[in-house]
């Protein structure tokens, strides 16, 4: 079983190598395959890190342009997905750093908090009244701090290993594991603060 998995991974690596080689030889359509294969991953990271939907598309586009321009420097030291994930994470961090003062200005003008801004998408009243556990959990996931929800998403949704997530976010594997544990506990505690255990 393990041997089979190693073989499959090697085949994937080989396919990726060939794909990259084709892109570098000027075959633009090969890059389309890369975009199609990894747009979900890029979108997931951006969605967790950037609250504004309008900006997200541009950021994801920027990420793929960067990937295209720097593909020649990719040395296969990691999976292509990890490398693209890292570029996405860095791009989102840069965006957040640049936008930080602006974001605060926006909130101040509208007399909003970050939580209330996010609640625009998830109407808190509706959520409290909702008997659907799934809706309640989803709203709490969105209120988690950025690092926690990004790590949880990469682990559960993208099914990445601690090591891969660590490479993307420049964290040791042990720290990633700890974030995952603490994130899930935080979610549980927040739910129990808002709802009775019997209602959950």
């Amino acid at each position, binding site marked *: 079983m393990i041997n089979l998995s190693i073989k499959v991974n090697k085949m994937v690596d080989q396919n990726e190598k060939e794909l990259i080689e084709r892109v570098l030889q000027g075959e633009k359509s090969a*890059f389309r395959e890369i975009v199609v294969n990894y747009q979900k991953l890029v979108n997931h990271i951006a969605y967790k890190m950037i609250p504004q939907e309008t900006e997200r*598309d541009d950021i994801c586009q920027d990420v793929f342009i960067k990937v295209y321009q720097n593909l020649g420097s990719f040395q296969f030291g990691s999976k292509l997905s990890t490398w693209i994930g890292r570029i996405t994470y860095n791009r989102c961090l840069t965006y957040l750093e640049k936008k930080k003062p602006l974001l605060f200005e926006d909130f101040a003008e509208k007399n909003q908090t970050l939580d209330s801004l996010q609640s625009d998408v998830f109407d808190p009243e509706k959520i409290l009244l909702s008997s659907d556990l799934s809706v309640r959990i989803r709203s709490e996931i969105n209120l988690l701090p950025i690092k926690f929800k990004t790590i949880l998403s990469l682990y559960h949704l993208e099914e990445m290993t601690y090591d891969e997530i660590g490479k993307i976010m420049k964290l040791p594997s042990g720290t990633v594991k700890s974030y995952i544990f603490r994130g899930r506990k935080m979610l549980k505690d927040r739910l129990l603060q808002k709802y009775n255990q019997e209602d959950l």
Partner: protein
Amino acid sequence: MHLSDKQIQAFIESPENINVELKAHLDSCSSCQTEVELYKSLMLELKQEKIPELSGDFVGNVMNSIEPLPSPEIIQPIDKWKWLNIAASIAFVMLGVITMIYYDGLQVFSSVYSWFNEIENQAVSKLSESSSSVSTMLGVDLGTILFIGMVLGFFGVLDKILSRKKISNLKIFSI
């Protein structure tokens, strides 16, 4: 004693690894079972979370915004002997230039020439039968030989640099 959050999370991820004692407690404790169910719901939701998709023509927009990469050029691998060759040529030119700067060029030539002549004369006197000198044999004076050597060395370096093709993007595959 109830199971800790860590133990519950670990149990959900790999139930086969739970020890007998904890398993026995879990089977009989409704509070821990409720916690387990809550964590299971959380993890399921995290796994099935629906993320809004990117705009319909996202792929097309990306493809329209990228410029074609410059066409790849074939690399001519430069082996260690070629590098040695270059290094030797550079050393030769440098030696010539430094000597020229340190002494007056013509003075060097004349002193080397006279030194060479002296050796030559000694050799000639020893081989009295032979009347030809090294210079005569070569047909040119030593200064000219050194100058030609320097020029050749310079062109050697220039040739090695210019003949090296630009490293293409395919470099990573050749390593």
